[in-house]
C-alpha cells in the first residue's frame, strides 16, 4: 500500500531519514509502545506516550509542515504524507500531541499574534504542552454555533462558565482552546471568542465518559469560574467563529495517509483471522474481504487525488469526501472482523476485556459521528461542492 515506489529522489531520502530515526528511537523504554493507543485504545500508556511526544519534539518531527520562522521544517505536502505513512508503518504509538499540532498550531499560525505564537508554538513543537479542544457541548453537537459556555472579561481576566463534552485527552492536557460566548447580546455565530484556557486550575473539572466500548477516550469538562488571561484570546473578541473555521478551511487531511496504513494493518489482521479459522472458505466472507481490500485501494487513490491539490484551488470539500469514504469503510471492516470470528466473536474476557476485532467493531461506530457526522459532511458537499440550495 505504501507509495515508496513512486517517491522523487529527495522524497526517497526523506523516507529513509524518518525510517532510520524511528528505528533508532522506537527502542528501549519506547519499544513497548509499538501499536499502542490507536482507535479504541486512546487511554492506554498515556504517560509513556507523553514521553514519546517529547522524543518526537527532540527529533523535530512535530509541526514539520510549519514555517521555519515558527520552528517548523516547512516540508512539502508529499513529505508530510511520507512522515505519516512511515510513522504508521513503524507502528509508532498514537499521538497525544496531535490536537495541539494539527488544530491549535495552524490556528495560531493563521490568526495568532506574534506574542501568542512565541508563547504557545514552542510547547507544541517540543511536546511539553498538550492541548484539548473545547468545542462540542451537550446542546451544541453538529450545531456548533449553539454553544452556551460563556466568558466575561473582568479585571484583566476571562471568567468562564459552562460545559464541554467529547473532549479527547482532557485529563492529560495542559491547555484547552475553548469556543465561548463573550457577547451575550449576540446570537449564533456572532459574539463567540476563541480562548486559551489552562486546565490546571480550581475552576476546571474533568470527568471521563464511559463509552460503549467500556473504556474512556472522551471526557466532559466543566468550567465553574475558570480563568484565562485577557491576552489569551485568538483573533478579536467576538470573532471566535471565524477563527475556529479558518483551521478547518486549511485542513488538508495529511494525517489520513498514516491512518490508512493503520487500516491496512487492521485489514491484514482480519484476513489472517479468516485464514486461520477457515472463515475465508465462506463465499460471503470471502466476498466481503475482497470488497474491503478494493475499498481501501479506492480510498487511497481518492485521498491522493483529492488531498494532493493545493489549498485554495478547489471548493475545499476534499476532506469531507475522504471522510465519507473512510468512516463507513472502517465500520464495515469492524463488522467483518467480528463476523469472521463467528460465535466466538461474542465472548469477552474478564472486566469486559475486548479483542481487537471486538474493539474495532464497537469503536468504529464513532467514526461516522465525530469530526462532523456523516450527515453534516453530506450537507457540506451538497451545498459547497454541488451548489445545492440551503434548506
Amino acid at each position, binding site marked *: 500500500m505504501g*507509495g515508496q515506489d*513512486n517517491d522523487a529522489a529527495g522524497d526517497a531520502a526523506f523516507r529513509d531519514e524518518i525510517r532510520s530515526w524511528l528505528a533508532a528511537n522506537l527502542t528501549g523504554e519506547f519499544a513497548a509502545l509499538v501499536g499502542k493507543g490507536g482507535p479504541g485504545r486512546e487511554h492506554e500508556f498515556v504517560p509513556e506516550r507523553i514521553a514519546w511526544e517529547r522524543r518526537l519534539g527532540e527529533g523535530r518531527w512535530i509541526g514539520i509542515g510549519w514555517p521555519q520562522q515558527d520552528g517548523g521544517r516547512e516540508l512539502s505536502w508529499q513529505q508530510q504524507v511520507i512522515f505519516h505513512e512511515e510513522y504508521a508503518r513503524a507502528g509508532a504509538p498514537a499521538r497525544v500531541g496531535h490536537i495541539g499540532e494539527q488544530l491549535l498550531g495552524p490556528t495560531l499560525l493563521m490568526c495568532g499574534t506574534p506574542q501568542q505564537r512565541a508563547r504557545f508554538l514552542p510547547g507544541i513543537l517540543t511536546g511539553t504542552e498538550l492541548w484539548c479542544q473545547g468545542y462540542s457541548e451537550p446542546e451544541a453537537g453538529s450545531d456548533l454555533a449553539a454553544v452556551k459556555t460563556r466568558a466575561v472579561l473582568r479585571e484583566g481576566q476571562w471568567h468562564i462558565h459552562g460545559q464541554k463534552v467529547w473532549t479527547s485527552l482532557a485529563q492529560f492536557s495542559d491547555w484547552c482552546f475553548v469556543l465561548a460566548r463573550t457577547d451575550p447580546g449576540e446570537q449564533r455565530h456572532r459574539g463567540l471568542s476563541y480562548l486559551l484556557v489552562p486546565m490546571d486550575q480550581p475552576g476546571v473539572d474533568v470527568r471521563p465518559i464511559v463509552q460503549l466500548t467500556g473504556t474512556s477516550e472522551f471526557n466532559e469538562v466543566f468550567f465553574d469560574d475558570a480563568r484565562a488571561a485577557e491576552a489569551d484570546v485568538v483573533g478579536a473578541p467576538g470573532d471566535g467563529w471565524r477563527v475556529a473555521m479558518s483551521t478547518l478551511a486549511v485542513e488538508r487531511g495529511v494525517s489520513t495517509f498514516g491512518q490508512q496504513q493503520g487500516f491496512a494493518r487492521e485489514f491484514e489482521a482480519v*484476513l489472517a483471522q479468516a485464514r486461520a479459522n477457515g472463515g*475465508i472458505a465462506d463465499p460471503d466472507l*470471502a*466476498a466481503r*474481504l*475482497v*470488497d474491503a*481490500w*478494493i475499498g481501501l*485501494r*479506492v*480510498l487511497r*487513490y*481518492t485521498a*491522493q*487525488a*483529492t488531498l*494532493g*491539490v493545493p489549498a485554495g484551488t478547489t471548493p475545499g470539500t476534499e476532506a469531507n*469526501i475522504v471522510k*465519507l*469514504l473512510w468512516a463507513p469503510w472502517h465500520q464495515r471492516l469492524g463488522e467483518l472482523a467480528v463476523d469472521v470470528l463467528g460465535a466466538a466473536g461474542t465472548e469477552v474476557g474478564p472486566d469486559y476485556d475486548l479483542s481487537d476485532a471486538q474493539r474495532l467493531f464497537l469503536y468504529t461506530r464513532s467514526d461516522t459521528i465525530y469530526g462532523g457526522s456523516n*450527515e453534516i*459532511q*453530506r*450537507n457540506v*458537499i*451538497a*451545498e459547497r*461542492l*454541488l*451548489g*445545492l*440550495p*440551503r*434548506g
Partner: protein
Amino acid sequence: MEFTDSPDQAALREVVRDFLGRHVTPERVRAAAAEPGGYDAALWMRLSGELGLTALPVPEALGGAGAGFAEVAVVLEETGRVLAPVPYLSGAVAATLLACGEPDAARQFLPGLADGTAKAALALDGEVTLEDGTVSGTARNVADGAAADVLLVRAVDTLVAVRAADADVEAVGTLDQTRPRANVTFRASPAITVAVPADLAQDLLRTALAVEAVGAADHCLAATVAYLKERVQFGRPIGQFQALKHRCADLAVEVESARATARAAVWTAVHDPGSLAVVGPLAKRHCADVFMHVTAEMIQLHGGIGFTWEHEAHLYFKRAKSTQLTAGTPAQLRRLVGERAGLI
C-alpha cells in the same frame, strides 16, 4: 502516481469536450443506432480527420501522433460524458495494443486506424481456438463489431488480428442502444500474430471502460444536480430537500472515488503495466458500479420525466448496465481481483 492532467492533456480535454458538447446530442446518439454499423459516420470522420483523435495512440512512424494511452484516456472520459456514438474506445484500445505488439501487425493495421479509415473491435471473451495460423470459434456481443474492419481476437492466451472480411459478423439487438454489438464467427479465418498477452488486452479494455464510465457518471450527476436546482415543488427548488441533497452528496463522493480509481488505472497501464492485472479489473468493477448507481439515482431524482423514452437518463442507465456486464461482471471481477491480489 499522477491524478491531474498535464497542461497538454488539459488542453486536449478542453478541445474534445467543447467539440463533443457542441456536436453530440441525445438525439444524435439515438439516431446513430439506426445507421449502418450503428455509429455516426460523419462524427467519426471529424473526430479522426479534423481532431486527429484516432492518431493519438499510434506511433508517428506509422502515421500517428505518437501520444499514448494517457491521452486516449482523456478522450475516453469525454466521449463517455456524451455517449459519443463512435467506435472510439474499441479502436483506441486496439491501436494501443497493436502499437506494443508484433511490428508486422502494427504496420498492417495502424496507419488505417490512425487516420480513421479503418475501425477495430475487440473480441476477447469468445471461445476461439488457434490452429495453423487460423482461428475458429465464436465471440458473442463484440462491441463495435459490425463497424470493424479488423478484430483483435483472444485465442487462448494470446492476441491475434483477423480481418473482418475473413469472419462472419452479425449485428445483434442490444439493451444498450448506445453501443452496437455483433456476434462474430471465425471459420479457419487467417490470423495475424499480435503477440500481446490476452489478459493484458482485457485489462486495458477494462481500464478504458472504467475511464469512460467516469465521464458518463460525472455528466449524470451534474445533470441531476442541475435539475434539482430548477425543479420546483412545494414552492421551492427540490434541491433544498435534505433527503435529495444527501443522495447527491453520496453520488459526488462515489464519482470522485471513481475518477481517482480510473486515473490510477490509467497511470498503472502507462507506467506499471505489470500491476494492471489487479488495478484494471478493480477500476472497471468500481467505476461501473458507481456509474450504475448514479444512473439509477438519476432516473429516481428526475421523477416521472426520468422514466420516459424522450429523456436521456435511460441511455446512460442502459450503457451503465452494459459496461457492468461486459469484460467481466462485478462478481467475476471481485473474484479475479481477490485471486490476483492473493487474498483468496
